[in-house]
């Protein structure tokens, strides 16, 4: 806080000396601004409120903030272009991810209402961290400068590190937090080293400039190493094999709504970064890297999930697998500009997966009850009989994860695989298709538990409070919408993907023979 307060006057002082950012430039970070403002409001209001009522009201403030930010993305969308000396760029791509990430945050906030009350967690920091973390994720998707990407990445990471450890009376939660933190920092260091080498190889940290340099042909070996290191870091963030090992542990220990958040939000943002880093800069030699990583992720994720008994852990493995499917979309873009299919498919996948998974974790967190006691498969026995609606929604989400038609998950997989086939990636498609069949098994186990086993008496089933119900409903509707009318969202994704790729290609095309920006 103090630092921010400190820097404001300085900012203005400096701003006078140079051309100040115009109003439209602020518009381009409007969602971030809104989120930060509301985050601060939450922080300010927290001590003022009566402790008993604070949870609800703080949550509501946070929710309003998220919704306002959501609305503001529409304004932002009106001002495409770069801002702040080429730090951020607003295009369809970034708007898409803004919208997605903020929507995720909003739903998570909504589904946290009940969780807060049940788990006795400090609400002020909780909601504040979610909002601030969302800022980081938003920035990740719009940043075109590695410095900013790095910082945004850290914002989102650090806030999730902390959020993961929020159930502080639980050893598992702090352990989850610790593991996430240490490994996350470890991976960040790799990413950073990659950035450093990229800087060394190209002399810039700006995506455009790097892209420029790398399009010129004659790519230095250093750049390869840099891409490798950056891939390690980002691969870790998106939990793709072989950098996935942290996922199950962390997801198991972290609070359930937060798992919903971190399995979707930061992941989506990290995918956005990965897209920028991999494609916009035309990372060399990426194809087999992604290919192998995708195949490994799917296989390891699905196989790992087969024998899990803890639902959160199971869903963690599933998220690894889904990262793998998503990476198929990445693998499609072997060459520049051939098609936008891969990118748009991947974007659609993130959206569909987010809608589904947030919803699934909302149900899980509601059902887990105080102290997250009921998270094993056995606890779900007979849920279909005792709480039909809850079970039905969870079943619906699981179907989406399996990839059954009329759910978003189906089209997500469908787009990714059809893009892969269009690019003649038959091998990868077959691996993906087989994996989705294997994956059906463990999702089915949950459904089987819910519907085909006798209920166990000792597990309490409470009806979902309005907020949770609303959150779940939103997710169901979103998943359904994506499953029945995927066209609009896909069009959007295709458009923004083509923007992304066009900007990348034009850079490459306009300077065919440049040898790099420096010297």
């Amino acid at each position, binding site marked *: 806080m103090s630092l*921010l307060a400190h820097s404001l006057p300085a900012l203005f002082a400096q*701003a006078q000396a140079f051309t100040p950012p115009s109003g439209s430039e602020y518009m381009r970070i409007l969602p971030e601004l809104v989120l930060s403002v509301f985050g601060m409001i939450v922080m300010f209001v927290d001590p003022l409120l009566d402790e008993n009522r604070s949870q609800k009201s703080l949550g509501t403030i946070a929710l309003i903030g998220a919704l306002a930010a959501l609305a503001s993305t529409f304004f932002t969308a009106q001002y495409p272009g770069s801002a702040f000396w080429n*730090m951020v760029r607003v295009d369809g791509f970034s708007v898409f991810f803004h919208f997605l990430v903020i929507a995720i945050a909003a739903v998570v906030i909504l589904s946290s209402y009940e969780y807060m009350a049940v788990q006795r967690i400090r609400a002020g920091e909780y909601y504040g961290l979610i909002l*601030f973390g969302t800022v980081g994720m938003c920035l990740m998707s719009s940043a075109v400068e590695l410095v900013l990407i790095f*910082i945004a990445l850290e914002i989102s990471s650090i806030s999730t590190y902390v959020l993961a450890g929020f159930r502080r009376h639980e050893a598992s939660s702090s352990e989850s937090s610790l593991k996430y933190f240490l490994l996350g920092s470890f991976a960040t260091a790799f990413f950073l080293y990659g950035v450093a080498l990229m800087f060394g190889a190209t002399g810039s940290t700006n995506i455009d400039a790097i892209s420029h340099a790398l399009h010129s042909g004659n790519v230095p070996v*250093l750049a390869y190493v840099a891409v490798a290191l950056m891939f390690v870091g980002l691969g870790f963030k998106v939990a793709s094999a072989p950098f996935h090992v942290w996922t199950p542990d962390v997801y198991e220990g972290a609070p359930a709504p937060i798992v919903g958040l971190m399995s979707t939000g930061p992941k989506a943002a990290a995918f956005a970064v990965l897209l920028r880093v991999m494609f916009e800069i035309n990372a060399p030699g990426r194809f087999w890297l992604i290919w192998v990583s995708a195949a490994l992720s799917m296989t390891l994720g699905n196989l790992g999930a087969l024998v899990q008994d803890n639902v959160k852990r199971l869903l963690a493995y599933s998220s690894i697998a889904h990262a793998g499917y998503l990476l198929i979309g990445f693998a499609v873009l072997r060459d520049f500009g051939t098609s936008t299919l891969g990118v748009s498919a991947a974007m659609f996948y993130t959206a569909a997966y987010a809608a589904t998974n947030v919803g699934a974790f909302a149900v899980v967190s509601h059902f887990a009850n105080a102290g997250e006691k009921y998270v094993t498969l056995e606890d779900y026995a007979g849920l279909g009989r005792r709480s039909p609606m809850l079970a039905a929604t969870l079943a619906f989400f699981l179907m989406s994860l399996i990839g059954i038609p009329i759910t978003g998950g189906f089209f997500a997989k469908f787009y990714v695989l059809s893009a892969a086939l269009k690019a003649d990636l038959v091998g990868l498609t077959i691996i993906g298709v087989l994996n989705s069949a294997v994956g059906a098994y463990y999702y089915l186990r949950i459904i089987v538990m819910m519907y085909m086993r006798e209920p166990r008496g000792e597990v309490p089933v409470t009806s979902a409070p309005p907020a949770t119900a609303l959150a779940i409903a939103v997710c169901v509707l979103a998943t359904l919408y994506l499953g029945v009318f995927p066209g609009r969202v896909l069009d959007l994704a295709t458009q923004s993907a083509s923007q992304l790729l066009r900007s990348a290609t034009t850079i490459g095309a306009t300077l065919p023979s440049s040898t790099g920006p420096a010297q």
Partner: protein
Amino acid sequence: MAGAVNLLVQRHPINSALSLVVVMASLAGEYLLLGAEFVAAVQVIVYAGAIMVLFVFTVMLLNAGEEARSGGSRVAILLGIPGVVMGAVLVAWTLLHHSNTQAVSIGALPGDPRDIARLLFHDFLLPFEVTSILILIAIMGAVVLASRPEDIARHHHSQSTEKEAPEFVASGKER
């Protein structure tokens, strides 16, 4: 470098911390050699000063003893270390043969703080501002995580007057 190796070899965290300080100080020297005065200064102040103090403080606070010789991880030894060594060798090899960098003279870089400031508050204005959010988060996180759980319990349940502190936390503090 010696410091770095020492960090690895030392088994007591305090010693490791001190050797890290040595590394950082010497790095500051390197920066000076490269002409990055500003960075060198910040290195000394932020790293050696602030961060390491934090470390030492934590070590003291938690009264960390010597590392026990636990079994360790086979994966880390069998897979990780060879991997790391291989990777390091490869990177080193690349750096040596493919970095096509010429030698730089000492103090080659105009590390003028004013230039840096200009860069910082103009080109990199946004990251700078965003950093504040980062710091804010860090503070919040630290507060939340480091505060004792019973505080929160009291914070949220002020009615319940008598609340036993979890015993192990208390004992941990007293030690």
